[in-house]
């Protein structure tokens, strides 16, 4: 029932709602699962000095990022009784309102998925070398800072 193998994490451009729906559908054969928890990061139209963000352009130090995603996956399976776990992150341009991060954990029980999902998302934000360039409507930009 578990699929702990390393997966391709990066997706070119936005992550579509169809992709997420399909991913959910694929888990219907895994009948030991009782609870799924999904985190989606969506690009916000932040207002900074009277300019509105219209997109984020993501780049990554891909080799290290994939190694870190793998470490996070291993740590999560070690720490939590998960049935499966999927992480997808965008590279390139993601427009406002589109999804740039999709984290999906499944387990027999709900408590496990709540704890696991928050752990994984915080680990990604803190430890994966991905860089967001916020593009404003006038094509100027600033580098995104996580908090």
């Amino acid at each position, binding site marked *: 029932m578990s699929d702990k193998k390393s997966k391709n994490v990066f997706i070119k451009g936005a992550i579509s709602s169809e992709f997420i729906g399909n991913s959910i559908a694929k888990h219907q054969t895994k009948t030991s699962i009782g609870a799924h928890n999904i985190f989606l990061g969506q690009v916000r139209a932040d207002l900074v000095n009277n300019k509105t963000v219209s997109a984020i352009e993501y780049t990554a130090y891909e080799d*290290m990022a994939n190694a870190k995603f793998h470490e996070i996956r291993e740590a999560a399976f070690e720490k939590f009784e998960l049935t499966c776990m999927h992480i997808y992150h965008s590279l390139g341009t993601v427009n406002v309102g589109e999804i740039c991060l999709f984290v999906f954990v499944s387990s027999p029980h709900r408590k496990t998925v709540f704890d696991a999902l928050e752990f994984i998302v915080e680990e*990604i934000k803190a430890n*994966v070398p*991905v*860089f967001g*360039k916020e593009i404003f409507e006038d094509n100027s930009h600033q*580098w995104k800072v*996580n908090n």
Partner: protein
Amino acid sequence: MLIKIKYFGLLTEVTNCQEETIDFSGNIISELLELLFVKYPNLKNKEFQVAQNQELVPVEAKLLSNEIVLLPPFSGG
């Protein structure tokens, strides 16, 4: 020794490149950084971490690879 240096995010705007190769004779990462601070005085004001062999390392670490990566604060998700 030829060292390849990679830059990401904001740092690419300071260096105007994504990677470069530098001839370096020292063996501590901080010495390499001193060289880069001479070449790019603005780099000193930027917050960044150094990765070697895909792991973050302190600047006092020994140079163990011929590829060093300078990473600004992460902002994924």
